[in-house]
Every structure is written in structure tokens, then in C-alpha cells.
């Protein structure tokens, strides 16, 4: 993975020092909260319901053992011995005191991490496919470009006070596992008709109050032109994005108001108007230097199957079931990627204790070349594991309480922190997630259902991505009581779609039984066990599922 050189490290240190001064001025009363707010936000510090929250950047979701141990240390020393992995591949600490923030940032810098631009109206952490570099379907590893975008967007003088936050995701082509069509900018590596690899540029996607699937602004842009093209988009947005209403300030609203053609015209005109001297110069030597950090590890020549693994699966049913859901194919024969579920029954989705972080770090160092990724589904991925080692990895994960066998299943729920932590939430998310997990806790039932993505948000800001769950759940407040609306048919992949609200909200206690009826209806209606929930829904429309949801038999 990428290692900071003197420039990167120097800037992170200077930034920590700069924020230390800002915190001191705040604590001394020189800075009112109103003026401190945008500064703390650009350093990942939120003021939540009960305490300050620190969001630490995990660029494109990549960690190694040392970094994950460092995060565990932060959790132990400054928080309550756990952290929360987010849908933007970052980690949040919920209980850090403002006074401790400068020290935490210094400590983070010691192991090459920071909280730069993890919030605020700037370009946020760049996200990507957690299987980047391992997926057989990718055109090219997207991570070098994520790192290049990270550097270009860090402390950008022109784009630090945008109308609203700005999220960029990059996919390596093939299946979209980075939800690029619901980002402000989504980039997809692809070949043009001459076979040259560049990017499709998608713009104006996003969730929140007004969800939109992004539109293709450019079918293809070359690598050398990418950053200049991004600058053109950013400048159009910075100058023309709405600033009169924060709920209409995201780029998706601008794209929608100008229309796809109108927006494209502005971007293309701005791009064409750039003088040579305005172009972002990214020397090929620099691209090569950054790419070298992401060179694939040395893989052993191995057979495509593993006798050790196959034999273990035959004798250990729990390993076999876990492997079915959590072991994913790898581009190299004899290897696999492993999804470490952070969705055990009865715990907040995405949380990991400091002990679990250390366990995963150890397992990754021993069996996965130290390569750990955060998935936007709030799980972790061990990217490169030899099939022969999978039984050992399973045993080690089991010992740490991390072998939940639900990757991609209905209990692998994406959920925001909700009313238990967040001062924007209207309703609890975690307890609803737990009630659904409880209702579907029978492994046989879950196996029968197969792939089904369920996402929960505690308010319309949609941090739990409810619009793009096959089933989405949105918490709303009705006269002081929590209600939950159900959406059907969303998806975050290359066929991204926004789910449709089924009807009136349900009470907290009615959600799990209602979803059970929906899923039972699916099991009856599907054309074959291979037809997934979302496929059946797309074939039949939502009417039969809506009927089941509201209890008609």
C-alpha cells in the first residue's frame, strides 16, 4: 500500500499542528463555535448527541496491520475500546474529548493516518472497491488513482469551501462494488475504442434527501487529463452550485437543474478553456512512483483448488457455511479474498472492539500479507489469502468473534449510528437492525434466502444508504414516535437504482415481522433458488411485496 514520503508526512504533521492551534484558540474562547465549526469539520471532528466524534480517514479503505493496531490503541486510550467503520470506508470514534483531539491527531500521524477532509464542505475521502487488486473482473487496479486524487484534493485552495460536501468513488471496471453511481463523481476505469485505459466520468449521483443516480458526463477521459477534467467539474460546481439552501447544495441538484446536457456543456466548456498553464501536471514518473506502491504481492504458484481447504469444508459444516458466504473469488488461482463480517447478531453494524482490531491485524499480517480493506458495507476484507490458509483464518476469526457467516445476506445490514449517537437522527437504527437480525437468525433460513442487501438510515440524510438497499428502511419521527418506512428495489451496483417507498411507516416492533412476510412471499414467488430477491422484485414489481409487508395474506 501507499507509504507517505517526506512531503505527505510533513503536511500531515503540519496539519495536526495547525489544528492544535485551532483547538487551543477554541478552548481559550478566542474562536466562537460558529467559526470553529468549519475548521473542526475539515479535521473530521463532529459534535454529536453526547460527545465529540472523530472520523479518521482510511483512504480508499486500505489498512495494514500496523495502522489497524494504531486505531485499536486510539480506541483504548481515548475512547471506549471500540470504533465504528463507516459506509465511506472510514472509522469513527464516538467518545473522544476535544482536549485530546490534537494528541490523537499527532498519534495518528505517527502511523501514517489523519482525519483530513473527512467532513466539511470539501472533497472527502476517496472511496473504492474493497476487492481492488484482487477482482478477476477489473480492467485495472483503481487504487493508484484514488491515491493520486487524494493528494490532488488535499488542501485544494480553490475547493475547500464548496457549496456542500463532495464524494468521489473509483471503480476498476467490471462489477461496481464501490457504488460509483451514487457519488458526486464516480470514475470507472475502462478502455476506449483504441484499447487505451482511461475513465468514464459519472456525475451527480447521491443519496440524502433527494436521491439521484449519476449521469455519464464523459464516456472516456485519458489518464493524463483526469485531474484537469476533475478541476473543470469542481469549478463549475463551486461557482454555480446553489448556496442559498444547504439541502439543495449538492452537485446532483445542479446537474438536475441544468439538465444532463446543460451540465455537460458547462463542464466541457470549462475544460476546453483551460490554458496549458492551468492544466494539472502529473508527470509519468510520479504516476509510476505511486503505482509501484500498489504492485500486486508475490503470489505463490498454486493450484486453483486447495485440498486442505476442501477437506476442511467437508468435515466442518460451520466452516463450509461461512466459506459459502464470506470467501470470495480471487484473480489468482489458489487465492481468495475473505470478507470479515462486522455484523454479528445483536451488535451495532460496523463496530469492532480494539481487541478485534488487533486480532484482524494479526491474522492479516500472518495470512494476508497485511492487506486489509474496509468495505462500504461496513465489513472488512482480507484481500489476498491462500486457499490453503482459509481454515486457519476461519479458526482465528472464530476465536475473535469475527466469523459471522452472513456476507451479502439479509443480516449483513448497512446501518447508520442513528438516534443512539447522532444529533440529526429521527429514529434508532441499531435496534431495528438487531431486531431484523434476530428475526432472520436461523442460518437455514438465511441460506435459503441468499443474497439480499438491507440498508437502514435513521433519518432522511441517508447515511445508512437506505435508497440503494434491495430493501431499505428509513426512520422517521411522527409526533415524537419512531416510525419506519420501507423501500423496495434499490441497488448500488452497475445497475444502480433508487428504491421506492412502499407506503406508510411501520412501528419499530412491526418491522421485523413485516419483513419476514415479505421474504416468505419472495421464497414462494421466485422462479428458482437462483433467482435473488432483487431479481424477483424486478420481474414482478413491488405490488406482491407491498401486500406482504402490510400483512395481507
Amino acid at each position, binding site marked *: 500500500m501507499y507509504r507517505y514520503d517526506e*512531503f505527505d508526512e510533513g503536511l500531515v504533521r503540519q496539519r495536526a499542528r495547525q489544528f492544535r492551534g485551532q483547538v487551543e484558540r477554541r478552548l481559550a474562547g478566542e474562536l466562537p463555535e460558529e467559526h470553529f465549526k468549519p475548521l473542526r469539520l475539515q479535521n473530521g471532528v463532529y459534535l454529536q448527541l453526547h460527545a465529540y466524534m472523530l472520523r479518521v480517514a482510511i483512504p480508499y479503505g486500505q489498512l495494514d496491520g500496523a495502522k489497524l493496531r494504531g486505531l485499536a490503541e486510539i480506541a483504548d486510550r481515548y475512547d471506549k475500546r471500540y470504533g465504528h467503520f463507516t459506509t465511506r470506508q472510514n472509522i469513527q470514534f464516538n467518545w473522544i474529548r476535544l482536549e485530546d483531539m490534537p494528541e490523537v491527531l499527532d498519534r495518528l500521524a505517527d502511523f501514517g493516518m489523519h482525519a483530513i477532509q473527512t467532513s466539511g464542505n470539501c472533497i472527502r475521502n476517496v472511496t473504492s472497491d474493497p476487492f481492488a487488486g484482487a477482482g478477476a473482473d477489473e480492467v485495472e487496479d483503481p487504487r493508484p488513482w484514488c491515491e493520486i486524487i487524494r*493528494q490532488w*484534493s488535499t*488542501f485544494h485552495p*480553490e475547493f475547500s469551501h*464548496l457549496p456542500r460536501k463532495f464524494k468521489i468513488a473509483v471503480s476498476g471496471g467490471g462489477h461496481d462494488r464501490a457504488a460509483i453511481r451514487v457519488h458526486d463523481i464516480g470514475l470507472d476505469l475502462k478502455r476506449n475504442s483504441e484499447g487505451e485505459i482511461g475513465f468514464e466520468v459519472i456525475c451527480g449521483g447521491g443519496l440524502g434527501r433527494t436521491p439521484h443516480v449519476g449521469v455519464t458526463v464523459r464516456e472516456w477521459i485519458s489518464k493524463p487529463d483526469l485531474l484537469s477534467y476533475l478541476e473543470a467539474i469542481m469549478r463549475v460546481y463551486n*461557482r454555480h452550485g446553489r448556496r442559498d439552501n444547504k439541502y439543495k447544495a449538492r452537485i446532483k441538484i445542479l446537474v438536475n437543474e441544468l439538465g444532463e446536457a446543460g451540465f455537460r456543456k458547462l463542464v466541457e466548456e470549462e475544460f476546453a*478553456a483551460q490554458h496549458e498553464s492551468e492544466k494539472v501536471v502529473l508527470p509519468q*514518473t510520479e504516476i509510476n512512483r505511486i503505482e509501484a506502491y500498489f504492485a500486486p504481492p508475490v503470489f505463490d504458484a498454486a493450484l486453483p483448488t486447495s485440498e486442505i481447504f476442501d477437506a476442511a469444508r467437508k468435515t466442518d459444516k460451520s466452516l463450509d457455511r461461512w466459506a459459502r458466504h464470506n470467501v470470495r473469488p480471487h484473480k489468482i488461482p489458489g487465492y481468495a479474498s475473505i470478507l470479515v463480517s462486522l455484523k454479528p447478531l445483536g451488535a451495532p453494524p460496523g463496530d469492532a472492539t480494539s481487541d478485534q482490531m488487533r486480532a484482524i491485524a494479526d491474522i492479516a499480517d500472518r495470512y494476508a500479507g497485511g492487506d486489509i480493506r474496509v468495505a462500504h458495507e461496513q465489513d472488512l476484507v482480507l484481500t489476498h489469502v491462500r486457499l490453503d490458509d482459509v481454515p486457519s483464518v476461519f479458526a482465528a476469526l472464530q476465536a475473535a468473534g469475527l466469523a459471522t457467516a452472513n456476507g451479502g445476506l439479509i443480516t449483513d445490514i448497512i446501518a447508520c449510528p442513528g438516534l443512539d449517537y447522532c444529533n440529526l437522527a429521527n429514529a434508532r437504527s441499531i435496534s431495528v437492525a438487531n431486531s431484523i437480525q434476530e428475526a432472520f437468525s436461523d442460518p437455514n433460513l438465511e441460506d435459503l434466502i441468499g443474497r439480499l442487501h438491507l440498508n437502514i438510515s435513521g433519518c432522511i440524510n441517508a447515511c445508512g444508504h437506505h435508497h440503494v438497499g434491495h430493501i431499505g428502511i428509513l426512520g422517521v419521527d411522527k409526533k415524537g414516535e419512531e416510525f419506519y418506512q420501507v423501500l423496495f428495489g434499490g441497488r448500488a451496483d452497475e445497475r444502480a437504482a433508487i428504491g421506492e417507498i412502499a407506503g406508510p411507516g411501520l412501528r419499530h416492533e412491526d418491522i421485523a415481522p413485516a419483513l419476514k412476510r415479505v421474504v416468505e412471499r419472495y421464497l414462494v414467488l421466485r422462479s428458482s433458488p437462483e433467482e435473488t430477491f432483487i431479481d424477483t422484485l424486478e420481474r414482478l414489481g413491488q405490488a406482491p411485496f407491498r401486500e406482504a409487508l402490510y400483512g395481507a395474506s
Partner: protein
Amino acid sequence: MALLRHGRVGSCHRVFSETGFGECAARDVIVTLRSFLEDQTSPTPHREDVGIRLRPDDDPALLANNLDAVSLIEVEFPKYTDGRGYSIAQLLRRRYGYSGELRAVGQILRDQLLLMKRSGFDAVAFDHPDTEGVYAEAVGELSEVYQAAADGSISIFLRRRTDLSPGRLT
């Protein structure tokens, strides 16, 4: 309100005139973009030492052909969170080649000063008990940059190139 030019306290006798030049000499007033453009099509346009104040939604492209007449451009930041002025500054400096005084006015806080300097502002209306000291401290907080910008800094992308000697970079 103190006026800093290149980090030093200075002064400016010009006054802002909402209604245009009137009977004033160009060097005594600051006019709106609209007043300036109207004046340029009048029989007796002001051709030198003009000062203009741009609102964040003004299009600096409208000035591109008249910049020789202009020696001062103020860019207004109605709120410190309104970042449009940074784009205006970059356009004026890098696309249209404006080399006169570029001054940020409005709600400006200490922690915006570095971004303003980098975007090409050489002057800023900014109040603090120790204006010069705070300015120097604020613009010196980050010593390297990942982007080329209007301040002429060399990006880290280029600084890393070992095949370029420092002499060629500067």
C-alpha cells in the same frame, strides 16, 4: 478595517461607489462590474487605474478583454463559507492574466488567509490586534502544496521529480 498587502499593513483611499464613477477620477473609487462595463461602452470610458468590486456571482470572463484598464479588483466574500471567490481569483490570475492588486474583502477569518494567498490574492481586508503577525503565521502553516495554483507554488507532484533540477523548477 486593516488592509494587508503582501502581509504588510497598508492603506487605500478609494471609496466604493455603488453608482459608478460619477465625477470621480478612476483612481479614487471602486465600482461594480456592471458600472465598469457600462462605462467601457460610453463615449468617455475610463481606461486606466480602475478599481472594481466583484460579487461572488459575477463572471470574471466579462473582464477578460478590459483588464489593462484595471489596477484593483476586490472580490467579495459575503460569508467565510462562500468559496466562489477562490475560483474567481484563480480565473483572473491564471486564465485572464490579471496582474494588478487582487483584494479579498468581506467576512474573512484567519484560517482563510492561506487559501486566499494560494488562490492569487495579494491583498486582504482583515482585522486582528496583530494583523501582520497573524497573517504571517496563518499563511505559513502548510509549507508544501499538492496543487499548482495562482501563487506560483510548485506542486508536490512536480517537486518529487528527480529528473528536474531545483533551478528548472523555479
